[in-house]
């Protein structure tokens, strides 16, 4: 019985072991972006303190040790995409890119093109900027009812990713531990936070899971200047 289990675990290891580090949100997700300035670690979207607003949080460059001098990359555009009709194509974008210690924001606006490549419309209606925070105090700004933040923050993600790796590597036949260990405890991340009035976020459609709730789709992209 145990032998069979062990064999099975080796199979699972074989299925997954080829350089795959599993399920760390998007932390450490794919070889081409791991450890680069274009590595999105997490996306959050939630109702703001003002329930008429939605907050978007896009985090990049995770697992930063305290005191890390990591900075946003001026060649990397972080783009929040919003799909208002459920066709999985962005109808609105919110773009953020740093220049000289300031994070500049564009949108939400309807992009001139969708898909893998983006350009920035500097003349769009909603523009914002905020000095990038590096310490404990958070510098924020506001324009047109939209609030802006960019800078170093504590990483809110929590996960026993090393135990997960042990499981899929065939090294932990019992699965997870209770309690587990939060491998993200004590680490920082570079965070972009935008709070936007729902009135600027376009339409909604019925939830694809059939719950009857009205939703829009959102996702984050990191795009490098060519």
């Amino acid at each position, binding site marked *: *019985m145990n032998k069979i289990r062990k064999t099975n675990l080796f199979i699972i290891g074989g*299925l997954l072991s080829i350089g795959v580090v599993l399920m760390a949100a998007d932390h450490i997700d794919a070889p081409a972006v791991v450890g680069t300035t274009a590595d999105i670690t997490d996306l959050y979207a939630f*109702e703001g303190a003002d329930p008429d607003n939605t907050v978007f949080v896009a985090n990049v460059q995770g697992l930063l040790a305290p005191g890390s001098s990591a900075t946003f990359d001026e060649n990397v555009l972080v783009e929040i995409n919003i799909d208002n009709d459920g066709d999985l194509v962005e109808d609105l974008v919110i773009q953020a890119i740093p220049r000289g210690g300031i994070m500049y924001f564009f949108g939400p606006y309807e992009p001139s093109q969708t898909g893998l490549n983006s350009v920035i419309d500097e003349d769009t209606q909603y523009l914002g900027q905020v000095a990038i925070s590096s310490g404990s105090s958070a510098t924020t700004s506001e324009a047109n009812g939209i609030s802006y933040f960019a800078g170093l*923050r504590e990483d809110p993600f929590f996960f026993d990713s090393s135990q*997960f790796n042990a499981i899929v590597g065939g090294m932990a*036949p019992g699965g997870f531990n209770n309690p587990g260990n939060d491998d993200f405890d004590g680490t*920082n991340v570079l965070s972009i936070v935008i709070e936007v009035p729902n009135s600027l976020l376009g339409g909604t459609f019925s939830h694809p899971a059939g719950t009857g709730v009205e939703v829009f789709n*959102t996702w*984050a992209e*990191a795009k490098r200047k060519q």
Partner: protein
Amino acid sequence: MTDSMKLINLKNISAALVIVIGFASCSSDDDAIAIDPPVVVDFSGTFSQEDQMGRPGINTVFSATPDIENSFNVTIPSEQGAAFQSLFETQLAGLHGAFGVSYENNILGLDITTLTTVLASDVLQVAPGVPTTYFDGTNVLTGRTLTDDVIDVSLILLFGGQNGDRFNGQDLDGDGTPDLPILVTDGVSGAGETPSSTFPYLEAPHSS
């Protein structure tokens, strides 16, 4: 000095004052430009996708090889379903097969094809004006808060079966050994996370 001369002089003084004020204004403008020159910031160019994310963990749990992971990140959501659903289904079936069992419809009643179809399109649904939760037992995917336990939710949806506790270390045959490992919780909660209730919500960074 005649009265008319006084008048002329006054006119000249007025004219002179106007000129001086005018110069002062120009000078002031020059100062303003010198102190705060127009900032030319370049946002030109084309930006090409390197990473993409909607829900946490989708790419990393389902993509069986580095090549698939890299490819997933540069595939737009509208094309992810066709490109990755069958690969994801194979992967999830394999994860179960490795423990000698088959996937069991989950707490949402989703079969393996439906679940992997939903998850292959890596976007996050957000319900504006509705309290946010990734999953709280009743409400499903109205967004993601900073403290939602998205890992446990994902594990339950993938491995928990119809009751959500299938891979929970049970010893059903009483042989003293768990029949299946614990895969429905990583044993880590968000209790240590204490985000602010006001913008920008995230906690201050750990200092060295």
